[in-house]
């Protein structure tokens, strides 16, 4: 059974320095609030897994929480580069970042294999690509029936997965809908799983075949309204496209990044206070 906890307590209890952590959410329902809390609690030496590092990992990398990144597409979608990711890879700032690079199909399959309790996934991939020359974890297997050679990739089995969802009920059962990404697989592949949700309700009213994670399959549920900003939560709020654009100049420069994190993340007690401060700043800017 999942405990209904504050995000602060959940991160304290379930994320440890050195853990392999997956914050998943494919464009939709990105668990940004959790990345802020990891920074506030100064978690170190994390191996970060995520198909699309996005702003959520640009933050963690720039704040010095990560020692390794496992990923498949690292950009600011619709805007350009992730400057903190590039600075870490190209210049080793604030510390060297080991990278292990896959394709989307590979990592999606690797999460499926992780959720399935398998040590590896089999897929048709990488023939003719240079990726296997720089990632020794991309191997092959031969079909014992046809002799075909297929790609074999290690499954993803994080110590902790964090996802954001729309709703939980009071027992801790979780419902998400819309773009589902690899969240369910990431949750089930992990040893421990924290789910932040927009709201806790009496009854999920889920369609019969909806994507529901039962309470006993997760560790903690935390009510964090707006916790997926600047991505979106279908049925709750839209993607804040302007924030993605605003991130570019903030993250481009080390000092402006540090100042932003000090002010908005380390300088706030929790995500509610962060949202308040950000709204205030945006209102001030609009004046």
């Amino acid at each position, binding site marked *: 059974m999942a405990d209904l906890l504050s995000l602060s307590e959940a991160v304290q209890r379930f994320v440890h320095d050195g853990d392999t952590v997956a914050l998943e959410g*494919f*464009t*939709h329902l990105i668990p940004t609030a959790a990345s802020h809390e990891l920074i506030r609690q100064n978690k170190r030496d994390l191996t970060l897994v995520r*198909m*699309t590092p996005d702003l959520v990992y640009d933050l963690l990398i720039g704040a010095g929480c990560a020692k390794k990144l496992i*990923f*498949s*597409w*690292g*950009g600011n*979608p*619709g*805007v*350009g*580069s*992730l400057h903190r*990711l*590039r600075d870490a*890879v*190209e210049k080793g700032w604030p510390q060297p970042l080991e990278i292990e*690079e*896959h*394709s*989307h*199909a*590979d990592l*999606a*399959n690797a*999460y*499926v294999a992780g959720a399935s309790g398998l040590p590896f996934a089999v*897929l*048709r*991939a*990488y*023939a*003719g*690509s*240079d*990726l296997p020359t*720089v990632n020794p974890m991309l191997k092959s297997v031969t079909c014992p029936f046809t002799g*075909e*050679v297929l790609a074999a990739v290690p499954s993803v089995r994080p110590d902790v997965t964090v996802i954001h969802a729309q709703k939980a009920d009071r027992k801790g059962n979780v419902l998400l809908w*819309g*773009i*589902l*990404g*690899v969240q*369910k*697989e990431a949750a089930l592949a992990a040893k421990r799983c924290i789910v932040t949700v927009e709201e806790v309700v009496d009854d999920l009213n889920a369609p019969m075949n909806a*994507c529901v994670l039962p309470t006993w399959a997760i560790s903690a549920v935390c009510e964090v309204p707006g916790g997926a900003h600047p*991505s*979106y939560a*279908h049925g709750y709020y*839209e*993607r804040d*496209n*302007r924030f*993605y*654009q605003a991130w570019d100049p903030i993250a481009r420069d080390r000092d402006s990044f540090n100042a932003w994190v000090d002010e908005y993340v380390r300088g706030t007690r929790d995500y509610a206070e962060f949202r308040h401060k950000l709204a205030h700043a945006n209102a001030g800017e609009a004046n």
Partner: protein
Amino acid sequence: MSAYSTSEMMTVAAARRLKNGAVCFVGIGLPSKAANLARLTSSPDVVLIYESGPIGAKPSVLPLSIGDGELAETADTVVPTGEIFRYWLQGGRIDVGFLGAAQVDRFGNINTTVIGDYHQPKVRLPGAGGAPEIAGSAKEVLIILKQSHRTFVDKLAFITSVGHGEGGDHRQRLGLPGAGPVAIITDLCIMEPEAGSNEFVVTSLHPGVTREQVIENTGWAIRFADQVAVTAEPNTTELEALRALEARTAAAHGQKGGDE
């Protein structure tokens, strides 16, 4: 015909390559713009699949991300990302994979990973995303990108997604199921693989574009087909649909979408 930009010509030319009813796996940016233009003009029944999960998306404005909410709302169904890659792409159900690229070579191989040495990168690009398996498994592939010396290079620093590999039948020898790239559509011309060598040669020049311009903007010794056509100008329907789409997108998002 009203005046049009080279960028509009590129998008229109790409859109025309999508047959009505084709099942198209769409990359974000230029491919998404061209695919949606096709859907709004010549190919109303083209099926758009985005790697985030929507199958049969019919957005009224261009998505800024690969998983915008409107894609889900207008789709026939939305499946997990793992399923998109497993059942729909790898399962052999995609007619056309529609890709952008940071760099491309004469055999339609794509680099979206790195410029310079992988371990000491000059420029670190976003990486593979869905492209390697789209390039491998779609029945055919269309590539759309702006043409320049920096993007059409003689030798890629890194092959992220394979096209025709080293040319000839290399792709078949690699055991890849799809036919690979069948066209590269740029703001200057259309290139198609030459029979036999599978080296991309210019088969159609956009109106007003000279061979010299193409040569100047290609990092390899680009060749021209025996018959080089002139691309038909964008017609009014196409231009109006494209401009209306971009206007709706700007109004909705505060940015145009699809050019990044």
